[in-house]
């Protein structure tokens, strides 16, 4: 099956074995000449199965059995992420929320509470807080800074908006009993930035990704937030980071 979609300003043709990925991406469909073509084979799906099992094992979970059409969704985004550095764009793992034209990304290891925190922003700010992408936004970097894009790959709650918003800040989130936030340097944030960025298998694409991260960091504020699940956590983070 073939479909064409627009993500991070690029037209992507997806040639898949199953229909599911097209349903998944349908809100981003368009009719244009593709910049990127992604074609999936059974070997790509088997590779995702192996990767998922390795990730489950590494995190102490029993590897679960996933259907091929679900694994194909993952394979498609992996192939897109492999090609995006050519277009000054990379995939980042975090929950990205926009307020008043600026995007804030909360990043942390899975299960820490990124989505929970951005939901608190929505509770605090109502419709002023727009979910750009709750899980895996694409970030485009140019001389003026970074821009965050909604994509269909938006986490288990399927929260995203098909928009592009300039990145204002990245906040590393940790659980804490008492809420506290502080500004951190690029150096302090750097290891986490690398860990949360998709790292291409192709070394040239990885070199480009590292250049993009450095360039993004020149234009972005970094914060470290220790937070609980009370609304006061969102009040503290929003009021501090908005500047």
């Amino acid at each position, binding site marked *: 099956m073939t479909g064409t979609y627009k993500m991070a300003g690029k037209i992507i043709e997806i040639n898949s074995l199953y229909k599911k990925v097209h349903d998944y991406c349908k809100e981003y469909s368009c009719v244009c000449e593709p910049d990127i073509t992604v074609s999936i084979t059974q070997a790509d799906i088997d590779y995702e199965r192996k990767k998922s099992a390795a990730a489950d094992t590494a995190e102490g979970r029993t590897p679960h059995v996933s259907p091929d059409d679900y694994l194909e969704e993952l394979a498609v985004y992996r192939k897109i992420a492999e090609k995006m550095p050519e277009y000054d764009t990379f995939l980042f793992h975090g929950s990205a929320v926009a307020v008043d034209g600026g995007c804030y990304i909360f990043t942390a290891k899975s299960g820490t509470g990124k989505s929970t925190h951005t939901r608190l922003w929505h509770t605090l700010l109502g419709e002023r807080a727009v979910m750009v992408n709750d899980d895996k936004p694409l970030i485009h970097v140019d001389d003026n800074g970074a821009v965050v894009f909604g994509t269909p790959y938006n986490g288990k709650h399927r929260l995203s908006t098909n928009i592009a918003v300039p990145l204002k800040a990245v906040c590393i989130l940790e659980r804490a009993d008492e809420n506290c936030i502080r500004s951190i340097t*690029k*150096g302090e944030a*750097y290891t986490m930035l*690398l*860990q949360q960025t998709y*790292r291409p298998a192709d070394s040239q694409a*990885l070199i480009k990704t590292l250049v993009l991260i450095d360039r993004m960091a020149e234009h972005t504020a970094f914060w470290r937030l220790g937070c609980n699940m009370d609304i006061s956590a969102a009040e503290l983070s929003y009021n501090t980071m908005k500047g």
Partner: protein
Amino acid sequence: MKLNKNFLVHKTGNDTIIVPTGNADFSGVVKGNETLGAILDLMKKDTTEERIIQEMMKMYDAPRETIEKDVRKIISSLKGIGAIDG
């Protein structure tokens, strides 16, 4: 021995960082100081532990045993994450 092709050396500020590509089994990142950077520079070409120690002695004013201990520790860590071939 030589740095594995699935690991890149990236320098940012005063830090040297080893970043694995998506092909490496290791998925973390390793951050170190300029000593790590100097050793990794030497490992871009095939070399030996003794040659690295000799080069480091030319670069740093420290007793051989101190340098030898540092070099062995770093090489052992790099081997542990699969970043060294040979």
